């Protein structure tokens, strides 16, 4: 199975992280149900929506970064996480 899916340690870590993130969100939603509100995105979102938008936006930041510049991808990851965080808090 692992050979068939040709896993590498970095991709495995990413997917474990995503899985933990989703599980964490589920637990959080159980403890305190999410409340929909309106932020600078001008649409009604709860924290799950903002997580989704944040992750997609982070992916866009990484893609644009790798397409236009040769600067370190760690810097890009920092920017992407920052974007995701800003959307998660104020979006």
């Amino acid at each position: 199975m692992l050979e068939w899916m040709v896993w590498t340690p970095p991709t495995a870590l990413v997917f474990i992280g995503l899985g933990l993130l989703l599980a964490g969100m589920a637990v959080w939603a159980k403890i305190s149900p999410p409340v929909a509100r309106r932020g600078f995105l001008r649409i009604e979102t709860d924290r799950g929506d903002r997580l989704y938008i944040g992750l997609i936006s982070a992916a866009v930041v990484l893609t644009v970064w790798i397409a236009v510049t040769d600067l370190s991808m760690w810097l890009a990851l920092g920017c992407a996480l920052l974007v995701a965080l800003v959307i998660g808090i104020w979006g």
Partner: protein
Amino acid sequence: MTGERLNDVSGDVSGDVSSDVSDVSGEVSTAGATVAGDRVEPEAPVGAAVPRDEPGGQVDTKPRNNRAWFLVLPVVVSVAFTAVIPLMTVVNFSVQDIFSPTDRIFVGLDWFRAVTRDPEVHAAFVRTLLFSAQVLLLEIPLGVAIAVAMPRRGLGVPVALVLVALPLLIPWNVVGTIWQIFARGDIGLGGWTVNNVLGVNFNYTLDSTDAWITVLIMDVWHWTPLVALLAYAGLRSIPEPYFQAAQIDAASGWATFRHIQLPRLRGVLTIAILLRFMDSFMIYTEPFVVTGGGPGNATSFLSILLSKIAVGQFDLGPAGAFSLLYFLTVQIVSYVFFTVLTRTGR
């Protein structure tokens, strides 16, 4: 006191609503309208109606039985096997140079760098976006027009439905084959007519504009019926009294369409636009059969380029990176469409 008044409104909708609502202050009267509109709860205790619709969102503390969610489990399992695991495998492909399952090298993000900077990919991306935009601009209005023109009762209904639905029953590659022959200048009815009756020189195997038009018209022919059927279903669900009211007001046909039919089509058109965008953005079979991506690169859409890399050259790494970026684009556009069409005005 406000709660009492609001409860009054919800209880006695037909009576003196207007006087009641106009009595209270502006902010409360909007809340009153919501209560009177679609969230009437007769058993709610007096005074409980107010916090429910606070602008900050609703806090519902009623205990619920969520066990019905277990019925979704088969879908989750099948989606895991048909979508999630393959997608994970593609992610793994995209960061490695694979020669065989045992002989592979981790290359980091090199494939992503190569794909995002490839001019051929850029051209195919622009081409595919343009194609999808044209498909939506043609198929959505045309589908709605066909739906409005279709008969609402009598023998015409089944006849029109069958005629409209016919193209949908034909498999993709057969549609491609039909159009490949139909559009030919020498033996195809369509191509021959354009060349010899209209006198326009039309050859989709040599001219890139002709090839583009052929693929576009083929898609319109194949998929407008889907939009038409969805819109027709939406139109049929509009209650008759709306049209009677329009008739009493002596509304013109256009006014009836613009203010009654079109707003009521919002839901089905959302689905139609999403389906048609995703399908046309991922179109593969028909152009593959008709033009093979040519002449030159004229109709080589993203999926055709992708399959050339993945299957033709068997470059799994670049193909994996390409697929993920493709997937990201479809996700973003679909989400934006969905959000704009369903959340505006809320």
